[in-house]
Each structure stands twice: as structure tokens, then as C-alpha cells.
């Protein structure tokens, strides 16, 4: 077996700091999975479709309220490079606060907002499991593909529920664990799991049932639970194609080993998607008024 490499930082913030620029080339501008209807769509269309599914679950409407006093306040937990936050502020006339533990992510998100001239967004370095905001500050909490990088998912859900105003809604989509993985299987497949850790950081997946139960435990009413595993499967083909297309640029950013680990991870995850080990899902819940 390959011994764990202590020279590499698997902590999510450190990992994101190291890989963000390369991931923009590999995963596209939105830095998340795509939702494919036919499987033939470009990645950018599919990632927009996934964002659209989140918007639909959030109940946002184009244009939104025009009166500034009525503008919704949105918390984007794990805001990546700020693309969804800027889009939400622009298209839905809402104020967005994006948080991430990654210093590089905050910098990239602020630069994006400045480039786009979007002023209704702000980005801060904060932890989603202990965000420090006041109770009931937000109308919507948006958690797009970041929860798998947080060790304490119960604390994440608790914090989301706490900062929601009564009647507010949380929407979350992420990678999922679709079955229990016995220790003996983790041991047998440890090389695969270690490759995933090298490529994607110290991730831990939970089931949709876990998130639903956690939300209910925090007093939220679960509205929607969608398993999107099949529709996200073509994402890995697109990521591999991007790796080939941007080989030189990505190698310059994360090295040949980093690129190889990413491509191998696409193969491993695709197998896990197909054999029912991992997948993708979305959940939404409201705080009773």
C-alpha cells in the first residue's frame, strides 16, 4: 500500500487553497457537478441546470423583490469561487453573503464580484459549522456541494437552521453515501479512497436520510428529497475531457501527480456511482413560521 503522505494538506481549506485555480479548468466555472438531462449537454449547461434545480427548490423567482427593504438575505455556505452568489444577486435581486474556510476562495469570489460589478454580495472566511451570524438573519441558506468537506454535518444543519428566520428555507445538494461501507471494504479499497482524498481533500459523505433526519432534529420541515445520482453521472466524462484539454495548464498548477490523481478519481467515482456506493442528492427544508 502507499503510505499516507503527511506533506499534503488534506484539510478542506488548505486543499481548496491549493487546487481552486486548477479546478476552475477541470470542473468549469461553477466548480460543481452537472445535472444532465440527455447526457449530451456541455458541462456548462449541466452545471447551470444543477444550479437551476437548487433555485427551484429555494423558491426563488427571476427579478425578485425590487424594493431594497424587501430584498431577501441569502447565506451561501461554502461559496466556492462565488459564481452562484453573483448569479443569485444579479438574477434574483437578493443580497448574498458567501462564506468559505478557504482564503483563496474568498479572494477569488471577491475578484469575481468586482469583475462583474456585482455589489449585492460579500464574501467572508467563516466556518459553516460555526458561522457566527445572529439567529434568524437569513431568508435562505444555500449549501451547494460543500457539506461533504465538513466533519460535523449535524453542526452544519444546526447552524443553517439557527440563522434562518421563521418561514425561511435551506437548500442543500451534495455528494452522498448511498449505502453503509463496512470496514473490511474500506480496507480493501483503501487505495481508491486514498486517491480520492488526494484529489478532492478530506471528504466524508452522508446519506440523504441523514440530512433529512438532521433537519427534522433541528425543527425544520423537510419539503423535498431528490436522488440525482443518475443525472450527475456524465459529469465525470466532462471532467476527464477538460483534463485532457487543459493538461499543460493544470499540470503547471497542481503538478502531473495532481492531474493524474484527478483523472483516476473520475474513474473511481464513476465506478462508485454505478455500483451504488456514492451518488448525488438534493434536500430542502423550511423553518416553521
Amino acid at each position: 500500500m502507499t503510505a499516507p503522505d503527511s506533506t499534503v494538506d488534506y484539510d478542506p481549506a488548505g486543499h481548496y487553497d491549493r487546487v481552486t485555480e486548477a479546478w476552475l479548468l477541470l470542473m468549469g466555472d461553477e466548480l460543481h457537478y452537472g445535472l444532465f438531462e440527455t447526457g449530451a449537454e456541455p458541462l456548462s449547461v449541466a452545471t447551470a441546470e444543477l444550479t437551476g434545480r437548487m433555485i427551484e427548490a429555494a423558491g426563488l423567482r427571476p427579478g425578485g423583490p425590487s424594493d431594497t427593504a424587501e430584498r431577501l438575505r441569502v447565506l451561501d455556505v461554502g461559496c466556492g469561487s462565488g459564481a452562484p452568489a453573483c448569479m443569485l444577486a444579479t438574477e434574483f435581486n437578493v443580497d448574498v453573503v458567501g462564506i468559505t474556510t478557504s482564503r483563496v476562495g474568498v479572494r477569488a469570489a471577491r475578484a469575481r464580484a468586482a469583475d462583474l460589478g456585482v455589489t449585492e454580495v460579500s464574501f467572508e472566511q467563516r466556518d459553516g459549522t460555526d458561522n457566527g451570524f445572529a439567529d434568524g438573519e437569513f431568508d435562505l441558506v444555500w449549501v451547494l456541494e460543500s457539506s461533504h468537506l465538513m466533519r460535523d454535518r449535524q453542526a452544519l444543519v444546526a447552524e443553517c437552521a439557527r440563522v434562518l428566520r421563521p418561514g425561511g428555507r435551506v437548500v442543500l445538494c451534495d455528494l452522498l453515501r448511498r449505502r453503509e461501507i463496512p470496514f473490511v471494504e474500506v480496507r480493501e479499497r483503501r487505495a481508491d479512497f486514498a486517491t480520492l482524498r488526494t484529489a478532492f481533500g478530506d471528504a466524508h459523505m452522508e446519506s440523504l436520510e441523514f440530512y433529512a433526519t438532521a433537519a427534522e432534529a433541528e425543527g425544520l420541515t423537510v419539503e423535498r428529497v431528490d436522488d440525482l445520482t443518475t443525472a450527475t453521472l456524465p459529469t465525470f466524462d466532462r471532467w476527464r475531457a477538460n483534463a485532457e484539454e487543459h493538461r499543460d495548464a493544470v499540470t503547471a498548477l497542481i503538478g502531473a501527480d495532481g492531474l493524474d490523481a484527478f483523472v483516476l478519481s473520475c474513474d473511481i467515482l464513476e465506478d462508485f456511482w454505478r455500483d451504488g456506493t456514492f451518488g448525488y442528492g438534493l434536500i430542502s427544508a423550511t423553518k416553521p413560521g
Partner: protein
Amino acid sequence: MSISPADIEQTVVAFLTRTNKMRIDFAPDMPLYADGVGLDSLETAELSAVLEDEHGTDPFSTSTMPQTLNDILAFYDTVPAEA
């Protein structure tokens, strides 16, 4: 004759150090998982494989998962050393 406890402890400590999991207050009775060292399932699997590679067998492949270094040492206390 059983495998030397000092050798086992050295293997475990070396693993924890290499993976940045070694705590200043680490003690043989400290839990290896949550609320202790904090090993996750992959790290535990890696420790299991390292112990097997270096000592021929490992306690994590038995029916009872060890919870502490003391449990690991107790397992090896019952294992005869290789000739």
C-alpha cells in the same frame, strides 16, 4: 513469546506522526477515533494495513475493533511472534 509492545507502539506512533494525527497528550488509553485521536475509517484502514505489513497480523481484522492503543497492545500480547 509475543510481539514486543514497544515495537507495536512505535508503529502506531510513527503512523500517527506521519499522518499529522499525533497529539501531544496522546496516551495508550486515548480513544483512536472521535473525541480522541480522530482517525476516520480510511485512516483506520491504513493503520490496519501498516500493522499487518510490519507485524504479520492486525487487530482491526478481528471481530472486535480496538478502541485504544491499549486494545491494540492487548491483541498482540496474545499473538505468538514469528520464528
